[in-house]
């Protein structure tokens, strides 16, 4: 089988107030179910190596982790190659219980934002309070970016990761480029 290709296949924009990169595919498994149930909690901890996140939280260790999506939905993040294995593990753990685990890795496009002004770039497009004291690394926002759904989180103080639907990857890349255009610093989150 051919190597999977992400929608924008590594496009980069560096001319503006934040560097924007369309990254290669990463593994994403959407999980719905009772998040307090042991068969989910234990299995996820074993797979991801992190605890269950709180509301609007994301627990990530390097490229593996769990993101909160809604009271009955989580997103398991892993490397693209590991998806099938983890999906099997999850299906075995779920067994006859009522829960769902679905591979959505190919349905998404992933971007990485870097620089001092990434909080501003995001706040131009999403109705989100991106102040450092409210939106710190370890938190995720499932929201919209201009006219399409998106989710993003801070990886560290100057890096953010953003996920959107694959079909709108070009639109989102163009949006981010527009929001990061040279000379558009807001300097709102100053310290």
């Amino acid at each position, binding site marked *: 089988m051919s190597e999977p290709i992400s929608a924008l296949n590594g496009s980069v924009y560096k001319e503006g107030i934040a560097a924007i990169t369309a990254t290669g595919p990463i593994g994403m498994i959407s999980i719905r179910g009772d998040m307090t149930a042991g068969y989910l909690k234990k299995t996820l901890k074993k797979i991801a190596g992190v605890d269950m996140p709180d509301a609007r939280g994301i627990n990530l260790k390097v490229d593996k982790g769990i993101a909160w999506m809604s009271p009955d939905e989580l997103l398991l993040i892993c490397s693209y190659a590991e998806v099938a294995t983890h999906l099997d593990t999850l299906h075995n753990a779920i067994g006859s219980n009522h829960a769902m685990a679905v591979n959505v890795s190919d349905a998404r496009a992933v971007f990485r934002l870097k620089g001092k002004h990434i909080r501003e770039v995001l706040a*131009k497009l999403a109705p989100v309070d991106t102040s450092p004291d409210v939106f710190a690394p370890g938190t995720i926002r499932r929201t919209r970016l201009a006219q399409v759904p998106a989710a993003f989180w801070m990886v560290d103080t100057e890096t953010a990761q953003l996920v959107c639907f694959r079909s709108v990857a*070009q639109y989102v890349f163009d949006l981010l480029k*527009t929001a990061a255009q040279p000379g558009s610093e807001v300097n709102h989150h100053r310290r």
Partner: protein
Amino acid sequence: MSTRIATGGRLLNKSNAVSFSFNGKHLRGFEGDTLASALLANDQMLVGRSFKYHRPRGIVAAGPEEPNALMNLGREGQFEPNQRATTTELFDGLEAASQNHWPSLEFDVGAINKYLSRFLPAGFYYKMFIHPRPFWKHVYEPIIRHSAGLGKAPKDRDADTYEHFHAFCDVLVIGGGVAGLEAARTAALSGAKVILLEQNAHWGGRAPVDGGTVEGKPINDHVDTLVAELAAMDNVQMRRRTMGAGVYDHSYVLGYERLKDHAPKAQGPRHRLWRIRAGHIITATGAIERPLSFAGNDIPGVMLAAAVRDYLVNYGVSVGDRTVVVTNNDDAYRTAIALVEAGLTVPTILDARVLPEDSALMARAKELGIRVMMGHAIASVKGGKRVTSVEVCSQAGEGAVLETIPCEAVAMSGGWSPVVHLWSHCGGKLVWDTALATFRPDVNNAPIGADGHGFVTAAGAAAGFFGLDDILHDAHAAADGVVTTLGFKLPANATSPNADRQEESPLAPVWMMPQGANAKLREKTWLDYQNDVKVSDVRLAAQEGFVSVEHTKRYTTLGMATDQGKLSNINGLATLAGALNADIPTVGTTTFRPPYHPISMGAIGGEARGEVFQPLRRTPMHSWHDANEAEWEPVGQWRRPYAYKRSGESTHDAVMREVTNTRKNMGLLDASTLGKIIVKGPDAGKFLDMLYTNMMSSLKPGKCRYGLMCSENGFLIDDGVVARIDDDTFLCHTTTGGADRIHQHMEEWLQTEWWDWQVYVANVTEQYAQIAVVGPNARKCLEKLGGMDVSKDALGFMEWVDGELGGFKCRIYRISFSGELSYEIAVVAGVGQAFWDALMVAGHDLGVMPYGTECLHILRAEKGFIMIGDETDGTVIPQDLGLGWAISKKKEDYLGKRAQERSHMADPERWKLVGLETTDGSTLPDGAYAVGEGKNENNQRNVIGRVTSTYHSPTLNKGIAMGLVLHGPDRMGEVIDFPGTDGKTYSAKIVDPVFYDKEGEKQNV
């Protein structure tokens, strides 16, 4: 003449002269000037013509309330009409042109209207142009539209960019004058997150012009100290050139930041729209001075007294050597004093009041030798394109002229009105303050938020406090109250600074000058400069029965111009109250609506223009289609290939070729856009039985079934093939447009109605690239790729199977929307293009061609398959379409069942689906109606049916169509008539809707 004087100009950088042009004339100003101050410095008193009578108009104000000085600014991609000279900062190379005149500003043909003004009173247009009715549209409106209008419409695409910005804070302070600065400081001391907005480029508002001392220091120093203190606080964000434009529910505020109107060559966006969610809003928006109503108060050179002072102090501009001051309050004395102290002449102060003793300001004016005439007024201002003199009369009389005083300028003050717009946007109430003769915010009736408490607090002059000391104390107290309700606490040592107090004599309300002005004077007394509304117009409206202020406003157009009555509203409604012999508070105000001051359309649109105007959804094979000459069709936000044109082909030729080739050889369709929704859980079958009209719970794993979905009103909303994956899991295909909508539909039922059913749904539409391999050679192609058995026995019609083809993991559904042997194959999106390529290679010798949506439509129409959106339009039920076979009779219930049993739905008179075949082989026009006998109550021919889909079928080499026809299925063979919009009448025979392969042999091989 107006000119620049040697002293003053605190906002100017006189070392940096800049050049600009006005109506092509090259002029010079300084960095720090506004366009208005620079025009005045160049003796450009006449800046525009009025809207209705084309009267010469000059600058009246120095801020956003300016009604007259509207300009066309810039050129080409940066051209913008209706820009206020008073809020436009001067920059080198600025190009301005005046508006609303022809052929020139100095000589305007439209000015003849002013001689006709007797014949153009309020309501003239309503009375004149109502009869005869058709004349409005064809004669009157085009003429009026041509003669009306302010600036020119831009012709070029806007060269600038714009953006939005979402911000959050505890306390939002709007207005960076002394009140706003003090409120922000106080709020910030409590630890609250504060955002402070100021519409101008400078902090301090008008306090530095008005003077005074705070804690013994000059006000300028106090402002500088405050600004420095705020700038050093981590929890404070300060924005200049950012206007609070509107206050909305839930403490949501729009701010309008003008980033480079003053520096158009800078990088970055031109405007930024701030979308702020605040815990509480403090409006420290100051006050606006009111004009006085006297005859000739619109002649260039008549200005607000405070504006005269602003131009003098801020920009070193004298409006005239001799300025007559006319007032009903003490504040205008400051203008007289400032003028005389600057070495200019004030021949007299006409004070409409009669007071027992002098206030400090009055005494100071007299000390300077200014002649103060108490109880006096202006009978009339003389002059044409500029003021030449004023005629003085007694305020108490009817306007008998006592004296004529030559002058170049008139500084008028009718008192001050707090800027209550932002307070009022969300329902804040006003009270009438008799002492100030103005409306001010009613502190007991603030706009109420979701928690039942007020979320806006007015502070300083905006709350009705006018002395410096009062303003500072009120702002401090307001902010203290606000932070306390938000749960913050001021440090014990936080106190309000004290300012010097200057007692002023009370104002006397003056709504007409002189109070007994006769009709002739009233006809020359302007209330609304921009819309040319005079005192006589408002009186006429009252006389004609327009007693509601909202009606009078619309009848006279008072306050309806682009300044939204900032100067005219209070004077207008006081005039109305006078004419009605009612109290001003009883008459009330008109409604204040956002924005406070016009904001650009670009800012509202934000980033959404050009490439990112709307999201465009692309399938994994989008680039391939693009490179292969796909003609695009928008389907929702997707773009799908309509047809792939080869060189020399018309679109029609391409479609015909694609149909023929698919029927003869094989075709590939990118079906990735079709919705794919996983439904899983112990109750999944039960759930789908409710959603679809037919039975889904009985479907065996490995099998597929076509299903219909209806709304609870019975109407068909979507269709598609459902595959049962395992006991607990189904995969529902939806239409392209239905994917998100049906997913939402499912979630809604699961979350609101059947919340206790054990079902989860997931929209995996974009996880897969799905390709339909269609045609007699389809199986051969898949066998060539190899890897799994796709024979009839291994994979029968309406079955699915997982496997591997040519090394690609895939799921194959053997379903057909074309009547041909057909496989729809899903692979993960990341390898979609590679798989498409593999199919193209494998199909090369088998005659493979990609086909587009029009070919798909023809293939399905030849088979009589319905299409959601063609055969359905939200009013059609499955029974209309002959789809009774897909409606389960066994099920107790499904969404739409009850509705479909209602009398209208079960009515045999409902139009039913049939096939239509023109008698001459031509193609019926889409949407055409069939006509029947007789006429309806509107004298239109009765209709008995309509075309829902129509195509030329290359397979049958004739036009084929489907349509809904009255008693259609019972009228097979009858010929009915469809008049086309082209003048031709098309005759078509009613036939079975399945035109091709009625037995379905081809798809079942």
